[in-house]
């Protein structure tokens, strides 16, 4: 099995809620990625079989969604929003600070594989800007100093 039995069972139970087999594909891709770190060739083949699609059709869907990826990122994926509300409150500074602090750029991963960085579009934290998502966790009202603390906490968690 490419993914855990638990996740496969979750998919199998959820899929009949929809009238077509492919309908649950987008969430399945995201949950699979969460477990494996990225969408591997094996994972794509598994999901294609599960949804009765061709692998090409699955890849077509993957390429549309910005969160989906076929290459692994760091254990902690730091996503810095620089869209308008964050831009006005220092989102660009936070992004530059992270680049400098981690020594990596957009969609790059640190040599130890702990952190990766991405400049992202609006994450819905506009009133608490500037904001960052690390994996799925929101960190809001940031300053470069607070950002250091956030990164440090994750580094200690590795």
């Amino acid at each position, binding site marked *: 099995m490419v993914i855990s039995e638990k996740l496969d069972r979750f998919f199998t139970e959820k899929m009949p*809620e*929809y*009238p*077509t087999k*492919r*309908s*649950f*594909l*987008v*969430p399945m*891709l*995201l949950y699979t990625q969460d477990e494996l770190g990225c969408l591997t060739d094996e994972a794509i083949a598994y999901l294609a079989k599960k*949804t009765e699609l061709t692998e090409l059709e699955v890849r*077509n*869907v993957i*390429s*549309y*969604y*910005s*969160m*989906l990826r076929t290459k692994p990122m760091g254990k902690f994926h730091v996503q810095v929003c*620089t*869209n*308008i*509300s964050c*831009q*006005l*409150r220092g989102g*660009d500074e936070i*992004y*530059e600070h992270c680049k400098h602090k981690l020594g990596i*750029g*957009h*969609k790059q991963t640190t040599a130890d594989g702990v952190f990766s960085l991405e*400049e992202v*579009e*609006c*994450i*819905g*934290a*506009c*009133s*608490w*800007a500037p904001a960052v*998502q690390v994996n*799925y*966790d*929101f960190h*809001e*009202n940031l300053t470069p100093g607070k950002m250091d603390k956030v990164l440090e906490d994750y580094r200690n968690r590795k």
Partner: protein
Amino acid sequence: MADLVQHPDEVRVISQRFGKGAAGIETYLALGGYQSLRKALGMKPDEIINEVKTSALRGRGGAGFPTGMKWSFVPKESAKPKYILVNGDESEPGTCKDRLILEHDPHAVIEGVLIAGLAVGARQGFIYVRGEYRYLVDILRKALDEARAKGFVGKKICGSDVDFEVYWHTGAGAYEVGEESALMESLEGKRGIPRIRPPFPAVVGLWGGPTVINNVETIAAIPHIIEMGGAKYASYGPPKNGGTRLFCLSGHVNKPGVYELPLGYPMKKLIYEVGGGIPGGKKLKAVVPGGSSTFLLTPDEADGINCDFDSFSARGEFLGSGGVVVLDEDTCMVNFALRIMKFYQHESCGWCIPCREGTDWLKKTLTRFHAGGGVDKDIDNILYLSQNMLGRTFCPLGDAAAIPTMSIVKKWRNEFEDHLHGKPCPYESRVWPEPALA
């Protein structure tokens, strides 16, 4: 997660349970939850629709389409199943209200879906939450399990003879999926490419069945409307602009946050009283009234306008999504236009040529222009390119990119002209290197 704020001018309808633990069903029930569903089960479908029409509720996603009218377009008889689809793909820059509703009051959304379904004859609902909001998906899944365990969702809801299923669904990062036809494509497991209309979703929607698509905030208002009556809800706002809405204040204000205010609330008071004014006592330069796809307002315009749909449409502009972004006097409007265009260029799916080519060309032009490489004819060319996207795409993403750009060039043309002389950007002390976007 996100901090809650308060202001005395607030009228708390949708947000009345925020911060009270109503994501748990026991608290939701103790605070009057699911009473509107019981009431709706005793009403005829037309009575529910008429109550919503009376409420003058208009789509809170940004388009402001009358909700009751939208529901009435669904055919009574249909060979295919009908669906209620809740749009929680909140991603319009400046907008962060659906997040609070799903975090603090997910049962109101579920109850709204059930009532909407009773009104149009649908017996299945889907709540689509953007992929980035995973913690909200988890909250929603728990709420749905609780609602099912208590008999509000599933077989014979509330002991009636109605079977009604409500399901959760999640995206994986795509602004365009917030557009209703792209949303349906995504829910069907495809790329979020928009569909051509007609037929409209109310007639041919999800898997070919008639589908009502409403924003999270719109659907969360439904139980309150059924409870208090449409007339009471309508009375909070000006005529044809019923009720309250969540305004997401962000940018250069002292007290950013999400505030629930009656429609028709003056923009000036929103910025200076509710928002506590601009930090450092600086002057106002511009306001984004409702997400990045709306026409920006100058200080004079913001001074005189009320935040309801008709006050904006009378000017040929839009109230939008409730995302109010405030810009102080030190903001460079060219850089702001560039950041907006980078976003739309990133999010364009490439299906329609005017949007695919237009956003890319505009991003390149604005990048060069802001960096000091602009020439005189660029300014009109930016307007020309924007004009040629407008109304020429399947979905409104092309319009969304064109509208703020045109308004910035028209209203702050002097700032573009200032960029033609001398140093790269005369407005900001530091020019950030061009961020690399995928």
